[in-house]
């Protein structure tokens, strides 16, 4: 059961790499080739970042890329933001080792985008300017709602960022053969410094280009591998599945249950995770901020359509790659490699295309971490500089240049925190942090987003109860869960204070946050301004003003 839970959370981040990775360097491929290809990627992206930096004077330039991206570009960048190394390495590995249950996981990640498409993207684009808090505080009391929204934005970004940075060190040992603690810390610092430079100089424009390039490479790389694997089996998927079962000797590889099927709690845990993924995606602040980089709501719609196409195709590729790894590689080899199941995709690349393909895939995996942390950092800095500093501390009296300056300072602070956190989290089991970020987004953000957009009687009290209630219940449940207490992989394995039996809080915290928003609104004594509500509703549905705002 312990190993099941570990594996269960492993998908969500690459952190467990940290544990296994320290043991041995990579003995396949050439670290030099991997580094060389990565350096080329850095060179190309630096070119775009520096080019983007020439026009970064206003807040709209810095946070929203001047709203100059097309729907297709933004959709590709969303895919780049969303397909973290966890998706790529984690899901391929999970399918290779646990079969169907790994596939199950990818479905939640895709279906989630329908919420963004149908309920969130266009309405948010029409109503806000830079951040989620712009929308949430539109018709409620500015200060308290903005602060609450900023706190939950920063919390989600921080959890996600820590998991990514901790994963970076582990990935390095897997792909470059650097296995000393100092070496890994050094690499985390390099990745962090590079990220600070990208975001500081390039702002949202630079970040977006990094994500577009990375998404393109990732999808091309995995498409090539997918066709390669299918060609080996005469483009007969059923035959590939048969070979996977035969090679692993695991009859149950094609059916659910290998990973989540142990007992009632693992099943409920999976349901909790599935619900958090589906409801959390559309409320992730670094996803929401991307909707402001396009000029119109129609482009926001196009962004999500492109993102769904790319993400959907990508997860179909991972299905083939996962079973391909099961069919072509030895499960023991995968699990014994540094990084365990996360090494399935790189090992498969080596099996198929040797050093060169492995180097390409390794560089893409790096680029992925870089792009995702850059996206998180620009989001966190926009939230702090725009919501907390400019609107709350300076009461909206800060000019645009001052706001950009504050955002750049925040980038440096967030970057340094991420580097220190990443170094500190090495070897710790922080995989749960990504799943937690989704659960917090689904509980603290989504109810308030939906209520503000669709429910006339929603009030400030409802928003605050829902956001703080959702955030704190998710954190409290995790604090008293097996993630922290009583299991081999817990922070305190010897003491069992786990009152909450699941490792994901979503099943409880999400309904609770919806309930709190409803009760808080019904019990409010202060009525909200109906004129503001009317304005928000009309703007959200028609886009009045929002599209003209960038014409100059």
């Amino acid at each position: 059961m312990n190993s099941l839970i570990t594996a269960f959370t492993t998908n969500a981040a690459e952190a467990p790499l940290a544990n296994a990775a320290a043991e041995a360097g990579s003995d396949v491929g050439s670290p030099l080739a991997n580094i060389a290809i990565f350096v080329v990627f850095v060179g190309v992206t630096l070119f775009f970042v520096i080019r983007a930096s020439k026009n970064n004077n206003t807040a709209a330039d810095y946070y929203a890329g001047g709203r100059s991206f097309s729907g297709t570009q933004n959709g590709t960048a969303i895919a780049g933001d969303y397909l973290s190394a966890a998706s790529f390495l984690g899901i391929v590995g999970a399918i290779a080792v646990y079969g169907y249950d790994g596939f199950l996981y990818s479905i939640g990640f895709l279906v989630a985008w329908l919420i963004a498409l149908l309920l969130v993207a266009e309405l948010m684009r029409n109503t806000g300017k830079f951040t989620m808090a712009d929308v949430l505080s539109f018709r409620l009391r500015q200060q308290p709602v903005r602060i609450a929204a900023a706190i939950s934005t920063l919390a989600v970004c921080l959890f996600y960022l820590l998991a990514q940075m901790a994963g970076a060190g582990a990935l390095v040992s897997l792909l470059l053969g650097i296995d000393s603690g100092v070496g890994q810390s050094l690499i985390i610092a390099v990745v962090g410094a590079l990220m600070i430079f990208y975001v500081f100089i390039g702002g949202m424009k630079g970040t977006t280009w990094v994500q577009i390039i990375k998404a393109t490479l990732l999808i091309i790389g995995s498409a090539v591998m997918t066709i390669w694997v299918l060609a080996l089996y005469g483009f007969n998927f059923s035959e590939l599945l048969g070979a996977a079962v035969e090679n692993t000797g695991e009859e149950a590889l094609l059916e659910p249950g290998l990973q989540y099927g142990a007992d009632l709690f693992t099943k409920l845990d999976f349901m909790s995770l599935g619900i958090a993924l589906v409801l959390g995606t559309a409320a992730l602040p670094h996803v929401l901020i991307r909707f402001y980089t396009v000029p119109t709501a129609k482009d926001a719609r196009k962004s999500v359509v492109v993102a769904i196409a790319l993400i959907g195709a990508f997860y179909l590729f991972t299905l083939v790659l996962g079973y391909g790894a099961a069919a072509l590689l030895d499960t023991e080899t995968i699990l014994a490699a540094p990084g365990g199941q996360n090494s399935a995709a790189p090992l498969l690349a080596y099996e198929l295309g040797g050093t060169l393909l492995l180097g390409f895939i390794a560089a893409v995996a790096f680029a992925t971490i870089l792009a995702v942390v850059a996206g998180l950092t620009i989001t966190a800095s926009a939230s702090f500089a725009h919501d907390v500093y400019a609107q709350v501390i300076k009461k909206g009296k800060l000019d645009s240049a001052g706001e950009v300056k504050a955002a750049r300072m925040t980038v440096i602070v967030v970057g340094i925190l991420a580097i220190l956190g990443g170094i500190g989290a090495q070897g710790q089991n922080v995989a749960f942090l990504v799943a937690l970020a989704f659960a917090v987004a689904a509980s603290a953000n989504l109810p308030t987003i939906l209520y503000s957009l669709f429910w006339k009687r929603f009030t400030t009290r409802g928003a605050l109860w829902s956001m703080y209630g959702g955030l704190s219940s998710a954190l409290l449940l995790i604090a008293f869960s097996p993630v922290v207490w009583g299991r081999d992989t817990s922070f305190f394995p010897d003491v069992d204070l786990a009152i909450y039996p699941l490792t994901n809080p979503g099943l409880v915290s999400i309904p609770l946050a919806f309930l709190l928003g409803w009760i808080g609104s019904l019990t409010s004594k202060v009525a909200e301004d109906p004129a503001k509500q009317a304005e928000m509703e009309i703007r959200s549905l028609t886009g009045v003003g929002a599209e003209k705002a960038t014409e100059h």
Partner: protein
Amino acid sequence: MTHVNAPHAGPVDYREVQQREDFKELRKTHRSFVFPMTAFFLLWYIAFVIAAAFFPDFMAIKVWGNINLGLILGLAQFLTTFLITGLYVWFTNSKLDPKSSAIRLELEARGAGLPEEEKH
């Protein structure tokens, strides 16, 4: 810079617009598509997850070669996601956009709009 929630004492009375038939019609059109569609895909996804978690034997039924029911239903989730996306694009282009842009153009002609983005 201008405050995000700038005073709405503009040329347009939003409460009056909110009560107009054409706006109510727009809202109704929007909601009568997105709400049922959201309910549908959420229920279908949850049913699928429950089937995978609690009825693995059902999902293991072989349909063709090594392809079992679980795989087919999983791929069907992809298919419905793509279909709903396509349906929504068709719906917004043909039904929603004409209604919303009519109101938007009218209000913007009357001078409604966001507070101007910061100039420098």
